[in-house]
């Protein structure tokens, strides 16, 4: 479970967040430049808040009072960007097994076969990255994130840039991740309908405030 309450300020930009994750999918909507991606980067540990805390499954990731800031690679939070961000010098299988080969996985929650079947990418394993379509690349990016055994999956507008048909092809995979392997997700988007399909709890980032919990 995610619990966070913090204030972040950089130059003229500020973000005030108090979020508790109740549902297995938390959707965040808001206009461009409101700070949705900044919120994800704060959770990930790429930015540090000026004050406040971030707890994930009772582990302290950030606490400004205790001067704790766990580095990004120890947070067990995986990120999927709008673009697939696959490693171009590796093939699909090498991308998927990247965390297993280079990381320090304490516990492997999922196996390659299981994830490949779930996302229907098992026939692509030996493909070069440059031979993939946009939808395939994004599914591999999601698979790679899941194979790092994260406790939380951050999705930063993962379907932006894909056409409606492709979106409708990929959205069911998020439902399967929610129902079949139960990885909690924070899903940032401009499109309410994507979140409605995922039955997500939706909170709106407005006037630099993001909140779903009483302070």
């Amino acid at each position: 479970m995610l619990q966070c309450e913090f204030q972040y300020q950089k130059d003229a930009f500020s973000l005030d967040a108090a979020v508790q994750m109740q549902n297995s999918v938390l959707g965040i909507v808001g206009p461009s430049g409101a700070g949705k991606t900044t919120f994800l980067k704060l959770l990930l540990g790429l930015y540090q808040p000026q004050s406040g805390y971030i707890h994930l499954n009772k582990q302290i990731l950030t606490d400004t009072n205790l001067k704790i800031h766990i580095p990004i690679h120890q947070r067990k939070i995986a990120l999927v960007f709008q673009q697939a961000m696959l490693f171009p010098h590796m093939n699909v299988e090498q991308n998927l097994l990247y965390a297993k080969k280079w990381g320090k996985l304490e516990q492997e929650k999922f196996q390659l076969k299981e994830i490949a079947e779930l996302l229907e990418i098992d026939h692509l394993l030996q493909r070069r990255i440059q031979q993939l379509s946009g939808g395939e690349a994004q599914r591999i990016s999601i698979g790679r994130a899941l194979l790092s055994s994260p406790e939380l999956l951050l999705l930063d507008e993962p379907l932006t840039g894909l056409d409606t048909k492709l979106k409708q092809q990929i959205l069911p995979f998020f439902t399967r991740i929610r129902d079949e392997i139960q990885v909690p997700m924070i899903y940032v988007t401009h499109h309410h309908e994507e979140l409605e399909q995922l039955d997500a709890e939706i909170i709106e980032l407005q006037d630099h405030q993001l909140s779903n919990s009483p302070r």
Partner: protein
Amino acid sequence: MLTPEELSALYLSAKVAGFATAISLPFAILLAWILARHEFRLKYVVEALLHLPMVLPPVVLGYLLLIVFGGNGWIGQWLQQWGIQLAFNWKGAVLAAMIVAFPLMVQPIRLSFQMINPQLEQVANSLGVQPYKVFCSISLPLALPGILIGSILCFSRSLGEFGATITFVGNIPDETRTIPIAIYSLLQQPDGEQMALRLVLLSLGLAFAALLANYWIMQKYQQKIQER
């Protein structure tokens, strides 16, 4: 066929350039990475210092090296306690070549690092991989073309280094007489022009081969990217 003197100059030049390139490479990668990925106070001072050897007259550089690393220099005296002598020694020629060629090596490596999308590294970190492993598995392989080009430029520049080398390590046959210094020596002799011309042609061949290697590597890499 090459005469023993020509062979000696060729061997010495290759040895000096090879050592200069190999020793410079880790430092160049580190500095290129820092300059490409980090903003810090006085960064412009580091950049100016890096490029200084390119704008300084080589003789000035050689003289500065003599002051610092010579037998009576601050560092030179200290090194002598450990039995290391750089002035008037081929190892000094390596140091001179390293300093002169270093900016040429750093620049393409830095550009290569800058061309890598930082989000690739962030994603790799978020997969639970430590930063140094991300550097080894993502940044370094993707910067390989820049590293190869930087190495070739450093090697070629080291082969042609003259001013700083002759000032710092002199012109000692079989010790510090590299190809450019050998050409200079031959041109001082009344009958040396023919032999100098042979070495000039050899230099031309080496420089051309280095540039061909450069283009060949770029072409191979582009092919590889297109195949993927």
